[in-house]
């Protein structure tokens, strides 16, 4: 608890004693709206725009003396925090989704071993994104978030939080700690920039659900050549899918392919392959009314309704294509980097292969950099020390451990260069995904940051097409409207 907040607290306590207990919540909820209230005033001094340098000068005894900051891509874990060793014991709290607990606990222990003056307090948030962000936001509202936390772009709230000045502005610390941002992929850094400034370091990145996993046994049996990373076209892929599809009566025993068009991510990458995109340059308007956009969704419409080698919406498993693929009723399916760990579920039942979704008519393959970050609390104390921990959690070894624990490969070229993930998952997977990741296009955030809301509108509108109830021609004006309704909302 920041000592500067004390006056307001005691005032509120007095209210409480005075019998105004019921209203305290209201007061608390509105506290930030009253300019005079202490918390806002206090936090203003540490506002990212100006304060970080001041804050670092104040609270970090020797930030500039970090001679071997984590910037060097050396595998050693120690340099990250030597700077703070001059100081006294520091306790930092760390929040993440509880499903990733084993990984973050292991990393915290490693950090503590290398820098004994740091103790890391685990504050996992139980559940997935649906539980994580509400909880984190409530903590921001109460000025009580953890010092360091995971937050992602895309389906996450990174941009919203950065815009609301809840995150540590990273640039001053990057300068003082001499962090080389070149150690991460450029697309990762670009995706994290908001108005040219960084508010976190990239922990992981994936190029979207553009992978194509396939059942090798099934392909061999049907005499179908494995899809190629380089020379496959959308047409040739559709033909292969048709050959692989098997029916008895009206029931489909084996689907040739399950492509991923819900949620939006898979779809947008494919639209980019066809040369289109989903928003205008200024990210304020929908761009669904282009011929390229229509060509792209027409392919996905055709494989469902004309060629019938890809299930319609009602025939698509809700829990994702992994389940039927593992069960052996789908020949090829479209997914992300993490599914290279599916071999654990498949066992010896069949052999799995990996390719990517085809390149478009002009030879480009669309993609989108989804970046997960490690951020720090912009109103927390010990920001300089917190940033040391952020550097540690985004260094090479943490990236490799992330790849090993979560099949999530991180935003660093040197993680891909490390032999361990290849030994665990198989070199073929790592190679294909490395290529895809190195060439990934950045993620475009709408100007008003309402990406999730936009996604909901797109998914629901497009489901008319994926269920065969409407056609690309008919849906595009509706889609354009639905998207613009969201994009025209104010920034927040």
């Amino acid at each position: 608890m920041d000592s500067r907040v004390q006056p307001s607290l005691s005032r509120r306590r007095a209210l409480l004693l005075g019998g105004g207990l019921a209203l305290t919540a209201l007061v608390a909820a509105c506290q930030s709206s009253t300019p005079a209230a202490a918390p806002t005033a206090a936090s203003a001094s540490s506002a990212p725009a100006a304060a970080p340098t001041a804050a670092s000068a104040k609270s970090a005894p020797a930030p500039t003396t970090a001679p071997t900051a984590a910037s060097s891509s050396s595998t050693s874990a120690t340099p990250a925090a030597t700077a703070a060793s001059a100081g006294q014991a520091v306790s930092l709290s760390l929040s993440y989704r509880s499903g990733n607990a084993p990984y973050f606990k292991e990393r915290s222990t490693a950090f503590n071993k290398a820098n004994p003056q740091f103790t890391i307090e685990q504050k996992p948030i139980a559940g997935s994104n649906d539980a994580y962000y509400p909880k984190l936001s409530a903590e921001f509202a109460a000025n009580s978030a953890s010092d360091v936390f995971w937050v992602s772009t895309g389906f996450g709230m990174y941009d919203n939080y950065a815009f609301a000045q809840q995150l540590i502005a990273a640039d001053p610390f990057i300068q003082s700690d001499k962090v080389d941002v070149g150690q991460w992929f450029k697309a990762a850094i670009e995706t994290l920039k908001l108005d040219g400034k960084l508010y976190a370091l990239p922990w992981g990145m994936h190029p979207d659900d553009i992978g194509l996993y396939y059942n090798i046994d099934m392909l061999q049996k049907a005499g179908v050549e494995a899809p190629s990373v380089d020379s496959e076209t959308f047409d040739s892929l559709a033909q292969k899918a048709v050959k692989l599809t098997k029916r008895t009566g009206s029931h489909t025993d084996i689907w040739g392919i399950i492509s991923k068009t819900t949620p939006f991510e898979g779809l947008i990458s494919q639209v980019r392959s066809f040369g289109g995109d989903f928003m205008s340059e200024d990210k304020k308007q929908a761009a669904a009314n282009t011929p390229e956009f229509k060509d792209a969704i027409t392919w996905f419409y055709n494989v469902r309704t004309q060629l019938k080698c890809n299930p319609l919406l009602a025939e698509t498993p809700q829990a994702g294509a992994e389940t039927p693929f593992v069960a052996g009723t789908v020949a090829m399916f479209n997914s992300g980097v993490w599914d290279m760990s599916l071999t654990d579920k498949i066992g010896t039942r069949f052999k799995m292969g990996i390719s990517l979704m085809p390149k478009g008519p002009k030879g480009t393959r669309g993609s989108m950099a989804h970046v997960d970050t490690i951020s720090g609390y912009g109103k927390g104390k010990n920001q300089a020390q917190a940033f040391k921990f952020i550097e540690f959690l985004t260094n090479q070894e943490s990236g490799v451990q992330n790849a090993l624990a979560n099949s999530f490969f991180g935003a660093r070229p040197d993680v891909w260069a490390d032999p361990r993930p290849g030994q665990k998952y198989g070199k073929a997977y790592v190679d294909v995904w490395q290529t895809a990741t190195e060439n990934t296009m950045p993620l475009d955030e709408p100007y008003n940051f309402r990406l999730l809301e936009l996604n909901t509108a797109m998914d629901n509108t497009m489901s008319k097409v994926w269920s065969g109830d409407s056609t690309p021609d008919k849906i595009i004006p509706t889609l354009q409207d639905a998207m613009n309704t969201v994009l025209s909302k104010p920034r927040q």
Partner: protein
Amino acid sequence: MATSTQARSTAVAAKSAGTHRVLGGIVWYAVVSGLGILFMGPFLWTVGSSLKGPTDLYVYPPELFPPTLVWQNYVEIWTFAPLLRFIENSLVAGVLTTLGQTLSAAAVGYGFARFKFPGRGAFFILLMSTLIIPPQVMMVPRFLLYKDIGWLDSLFPLWVPAWFGGSAFFIFLMRQFFMTIPRELDDAAEIDGASGVQIFWHILMPLTLPAVATVAIFAFLWNWNDFISPLIYLTSEHNFTLPLGLRFFQQEAGTGGEPREQLLMAASIIDTLPPILLFFALQRYFVRGIVMSGIKG
């Protein structure tokens, strides 16, 4: 408890023995067992999945139980997350909630059912309104409230409200039950010189045991399965309750790693055991005999 039911049914059966009765029994068992299988099906799948290895999770055609049962899952869950600690927290919150909720709901329900006071109707509507306000919008204001009174990251927010009426559901339930009890009982006792507290405790409470048992079970159960409140109010792992603990076994969408579904299922089975035991144990209070003996006293 089983014996008393058994004794009863044997006695009843003996009284009205005959082919009619036997036929009725056969039909009854057929219907109830059929429905039972339908209801148990998904639960059995949880049991089956909790004993699967990662490669047995999804096969086609569907398999309820894997070829080899992996009991190791039930060992692994205890080391994967501090389940014991979570269970302990859940039990503390659950027991305190159940006690407070039962007592306060009975008292308040009694007040609404038996006393006339100005504004009773309005208060009752107010009470029902608390059931209607979507909890989602109270989340942030409540979080701030608990922060101000220093209750965050403690079990207080989970059980203290139960001592002050808790959920209107239970008060409403108790009121409904008190209202089915003939008013003459109170009047007679009052003439004998019993006070309101005595009437409540010695005359009406024994008669509402089925309702009290219902409140106790539900109060415990809801607390046991509540995810949102602990999620919002608890931050340190050592304070987590079991529903939060279960999420440790949940795989993140968009990340891979070793399959954990079988562990989630095993942990879910552990999670359901305490409420099952409680439900089984409290059932005897639903049995007619007790209610009747109370009335005839």
